[in-house]
């Protein structure tokens, strides 16, 4: 009898029906699944063609990359006049930092790359040694940028500007706000009433006030609150405000992460005899931070873009440099090119952060669901 001959598990693995997988299958199910969808696909492709054709023409093919003024640009070709950028690229990067000293900023940029690499990529070779460099980097960068030591010429802060300024405020703010945010999140969950109250007040105040107000406070009022004789530079005051502001948001994001950890995790750690700080360090924070990555990076991206607000207290970030360029009679009216360029700079930085966070989330994923 056939039934007795059949061995369970011997049924062969068959190939899927033709036309359901591969390029043909994908195209058919995603682009041409019905008559109306096919028409829509064709219509979209035609639209895309004209759009891309126009964009490439304006951006590259018909664009002018070097000229003395807007009028000359228009004489040469009809596309974008990138000369406003190329003629002032130094200002966009370094602000009004003296030409002869710009090498110092270049070193700071290159150093930033090597200092951040071991922090961002845990599997890097020689990570231990690079971490030492990361630790010293802020001091090196401070001395190089500010000058006044080791024979370096001291540079006035009102000469800082451009992408350099964005990076100084953005990176300092990001680096300082994360630990402060973690401490505030833990403080808000603390059983100690005083610690909890201080954390709650700080978080609620910082979140309840517009950043721009804090910047005005930083520029005009902060020195009144300090003991007499202390005189922070405006840049340090601005960085402190960005740090406080972002830390409050990060604290709330991490608190969400902490609250998402099942109670059983704490019970298991407690029953193994672990103390509060051991549980926090090995159990709570690693899991809470992993859950909070999207929210934390979201806050970082927000902080980074908000650095453009320093324009209101007279610091010239790329946007400010752009406005200064547009005020020049030679380049009057080239706002599209200028703002697109600044937007591109911010987009590249923020997109990189967003991709990094996706990569990190993937790497830390141990759920295997």
């Amino acid at each position, binding site marked *: 009898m056939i039934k007795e001959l059949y061995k369970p598990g011997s049924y062969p693995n068959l190939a899927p029906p033709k036309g359901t997988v591969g390029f043909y299958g994908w195209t058919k199910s995603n682009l041409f699944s019905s008559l109306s969808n096919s028409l829509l696909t064709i219509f979209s492709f035609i639209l895309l063609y004209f759009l891309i054709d126009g964009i490439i023409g304006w951006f590259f093919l018909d664009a002018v990359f070097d000229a003395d003024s807007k009028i000359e640009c228009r004489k040469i070709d009809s596309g974008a006049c990138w000369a406003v950028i190329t003629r002032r690229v130094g200002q966009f990067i370094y602000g009004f930092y003296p030409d002869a000293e710009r090498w110092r900023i270049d070193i700071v940029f290159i150093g930033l790359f090597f200092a951040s690499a071991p922090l961002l990529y845990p599997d890097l070779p020689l990570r231990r040694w690079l971490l030492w460099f990361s630790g010293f980097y802020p001091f090196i960068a401070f001395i190089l940028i500010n000058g006044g030591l080791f024979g370096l010429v001291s540079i006035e802060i009102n000469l800082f500007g451009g992408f350099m300024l964005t990076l100084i405020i953005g990176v300092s703010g990001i680096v300082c706000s994360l630990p402060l945010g973690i401490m505030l999140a833990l403080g808000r969950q603390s059983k100690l009433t005083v610690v909890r109250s201080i954390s709650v007040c700080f978080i609620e105040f910082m979140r309840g006030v517009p950043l721009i107000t804090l910047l005005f406070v930083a520029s005009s009022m902060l020195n009144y609150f300090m003991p007499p004789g202390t005189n922070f530079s405006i840049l340090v005051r601005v960085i402190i405000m960005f740090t406080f502001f972002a830390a409050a948001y990060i604290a709330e994001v991490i608190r969400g992460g902490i609250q998402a950890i099942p109670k059983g995790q704490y019970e298991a750690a407690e029953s193994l005899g672990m103390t509060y700080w051991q549980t926090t360090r*090995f159990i709570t924070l690693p899991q809470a931070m992993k859950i909070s990555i999207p929210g934390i990076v979201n806050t970082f991206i927000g902080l980074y873009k908000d650095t453009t607000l320093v324009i209101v207290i007279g610091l010239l970030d790329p946007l400010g440099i752009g406005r200064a360029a547009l005020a020049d009679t030679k380049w009057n009216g080239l706002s599209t090119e200028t703002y697109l360029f600044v937007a591109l700079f911010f987009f590249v930085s923020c997109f990189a952060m967003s991709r990094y966070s996706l990569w990190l989330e993937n790497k830390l994923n*141990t759920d295997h669901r």
Partner: protein
Amino acid sequence: MVTNKKNNSSKPVIEIKEMHKWFGNFHVLKNITLKVNQGERIVICGPSGSGKSTLIRCINRLEVHQQGDIIVNDIELSGDLKNLEAIRREVGMVFQSFNLFPHLSVLENCTLAPIWVRGLPKKEAEEMAMELLTKVKIPEQALKFPGQLSGGQQQRVAIARSLCMEPKIMLFDEPTSALDPEMIKEVLDTMIELAESGMTMLVVTHEMGFAKKVADSIIFMDEGEIIEQNNPKTFFNNPENERTKLFLSQILNH
């Protein structure tokens, strides 16, 4: 059946005297008095909500009792943090939902507390963890994450993790209730082996086969009280209390 000879000779390792506990206004544990001797294996059963989990969670102070005394290994459970840490080092616990640390590998789950709480060198802790993982028959999974294991395997890792602290007493809070039927046996086998090695065990479970096989005594609880405590033979064949009879008829006759 496993027998235990030094039952009545030694001093109790756990002594609970007239203990009461409330959740807010709700009286969950009422006048609990219980002695557990070194090497004794006690199974606690009862309907849900009877306070059996709460009782064993009081022993390592995951729940705080409000009245009466709990003395574990000559140390009295009180608000004193030093006492608490000392007791938690002596008492291991296995949970219904495993509670493994999902972001750490199986091996790291087992070595974390020995390294940081007991101060063992990393190498020694890893050797001991591998030994215990071999005992629960999953040494080959040591480098995987908990999420990659089956429920039964996870629970055996949880048992190994507790044993890595070299506890004198093990508490089991419904260790097989969250498992598929096919996996219950492998966890029970591990627990039987542990019982045979002379570990003092308090087990909250509905696995009556396990109770018959390894328990020195069985406690039946209902509405926060210990209704009956007896050896397995008497408990199953002629229970003293009517409520116990009803409970047994409900869980054994289907």
